């Protein structure tokens, strides 16, 4: 048998949209499952409501626009948007938060711009920002871990009642996240050395045994999923590394200047949605720059904005705002940081050709 093995380059089927979406869904699955276990049945019903609303809105928009519904609906982009949005919501939020967020993400964040690949902003982050601005109370009702099947966790029917009827004893279960707690206490002129003991345990923060959004608590699972995406080359390293490094450097610098006023880098890196944002929201290929240098600038901008909003802004957490603001800057970054054209200088002139020196005796 004569097997003809051609030499490189080989053609191969390029990454399709459904494949990429599936890989990202797989990568975010561990953090999501952990959140579902940590916060129990209400979190599951919120996730289902959000995802179903996203799919319904996608189908409705596609049929209104007269585009084929089935291939676009099954490419998984609306499913992924729904999961990513649900993961960034408070786990016991009422059902209409999820439904309104799903509508906002798909209709206003995505389909208005022309559907998959055309959106200016990350749909899930845009919806989260809109919800946070509109419903500050519901969007900041956090609670500690209520793991599934533990004694103080609500059962299936109590969980449904929480999602569709409201939390019966809000003050009994809710509590501030570590970032929110630090912000309130700093506002009351307490110093960090008084605030943090007993509230911030780096070990618990890494493991995810804290309050927070549905999927943001387990930093190591987000890191794991992000690392896997890097290994599968779905995302590149520039944005997450630049974003996390910028936050760490800024936090470290200010912490050295005044340790009582500015929290250390570990707290910043291990709390809130930073890991999830750096690997899953900022790296959205549609809304981030295309060149490696542009991605570094984008990531650094996200990180700087996160730190600025967390430290001096009006909200305790700023990942969603940072990502949406840098999404708006993406066309500008792409305009100014274009790669050099091959064979030309940065100014666009053709590069001088260096001829090899002619050897004596060789005719020209």
């Amino acid at each position: 048998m004569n097997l003809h093995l051609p030499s490189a380059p080989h053609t191969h089927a390029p990454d399709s949209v459904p494949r990429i979406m599936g890989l990202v869904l797989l990568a975010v699955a561990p953090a999501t499952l952990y959140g579902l276990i940590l916060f129990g049945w209400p979190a599951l019903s919120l996730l289902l409501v959000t995802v179903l609303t996203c799919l319904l809105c996608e189908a409705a928009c596609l049929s209104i626009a007269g585009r084929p519904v089935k291939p676009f609906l099954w490419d998984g982009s609306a499913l992924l948007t729904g999961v990513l949005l649900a993961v960034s919501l408070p786990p016991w939020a009422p059902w209409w938060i999820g439904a309104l967020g799903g509508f906002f993400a798909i209709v206003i964040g995505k389909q208005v711009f022309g559907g998959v690949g055309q959106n200016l902003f990350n749909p899930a982050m845009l919806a989260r920002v809109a919800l946070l601005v509109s419903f500050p109370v519901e969007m900041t009702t956090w609670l500690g871990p209520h793991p599934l099947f533990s004694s103080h966790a609500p059962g299936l029917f109590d969980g449904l009642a929480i999602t569709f009827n409201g939390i019966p004893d809000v003050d009994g279960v809710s509590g501030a996240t570590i970032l929110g707690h630090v912000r309130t206490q700093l506002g009351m002129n307490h110093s960090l050395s008084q605030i943090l003991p007993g509230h911030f345990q780096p070990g618990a923060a890494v493991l995810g045994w804290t309050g927070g959004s549905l999927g943001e608590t387990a930093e190591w699972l987000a890191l794991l999923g992000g690392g896997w995406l890097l290994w599968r080359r779905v995302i590149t390293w520039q944005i997450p590394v630049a974003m996390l490094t910028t936050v760490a450097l800024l936090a470290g610098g200010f912490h050295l200047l005044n340790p009582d006023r500015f929290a250390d880098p570990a707290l910043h890196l291990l709390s809130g949605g930073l890991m999830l944002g750096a690997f899953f929201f900022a790296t959205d290929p549609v809304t981030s720059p295309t060149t490696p240098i542009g991605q570094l600038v984008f990531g650094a901008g996200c990180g700087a904005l996160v730190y600025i909003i967390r430290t001096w802004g009006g909200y305790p957490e700023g990942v969603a705002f940072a990502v949406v603001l840098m999404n708006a800057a993406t066309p500008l970054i792409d305009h100014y940081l274009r790669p050099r054209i091959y064979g030309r200088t940065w100014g666009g002139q053709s590069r001088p050709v260096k001829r090899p020196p002619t050897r004596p005796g060789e005719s020209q």
Partner: protein
Amino acid sequence: MNDYRSIFTEGLWGNNVVFAQMLALCPLMAVTTTATNGLGMGLATTGVLLASNVVIASCRNFITPDVRIPVFVLLIASLVTLADMAINAWLHELYKVLGLFIPLIVVNCSVLGRAEAFASKQPVSASAVDGLAMGLGYTLALIIIGGCREILGSATLFAHASLLLGDGFAFLETTLIPHYKGFLLMLLPPGGFLVLGFLLAGKRAMERRVQQRKERARSADLQYGHCRVP
């Protein structure tokens, strides 16, 4: 252009300040948090538009083209100052709500736009009709957008209408959903842009459908017209 009826319908709908010309959006975004505010702002602008069109049309033969813009601005500014004082005197409650935006009618591009595009070239009567129709069209747009934002944002309609129109109009004030939590985004400027965007899309879709129906009727006419008994 003495066909007053076509001037009127053009101003009210076909060439609507907001929905067709996309002018005067700054006061629109700022004041349309309720339908009542929209109505008040629209009526004030209508008054200024009518007066400025009449004044400019009657002076159009004395104003040389070189200095027309400063003269227009001067005339409009005096009229706006009058409107500002009048609202402050007689509709003081509304003045407290709209306060800042009434002097800003001076820079409302629709007023200067109508002066430049219409009143400086047309007789007084046509200009008066144009100013009135444009103003009413603007008022209509403000009420529609204000109503949508009010319903979505706070689930009321024509809240505080009695302050603007007198106690006789208190029946207009409706609360659609009691104990509504409020959708703050709709009352902030993004809500204005969102509502305007969706209304524009709706208007375009409607016009396209009407156009298609007309064309279908015309082609059917061309195809079978010869069979018709005259």
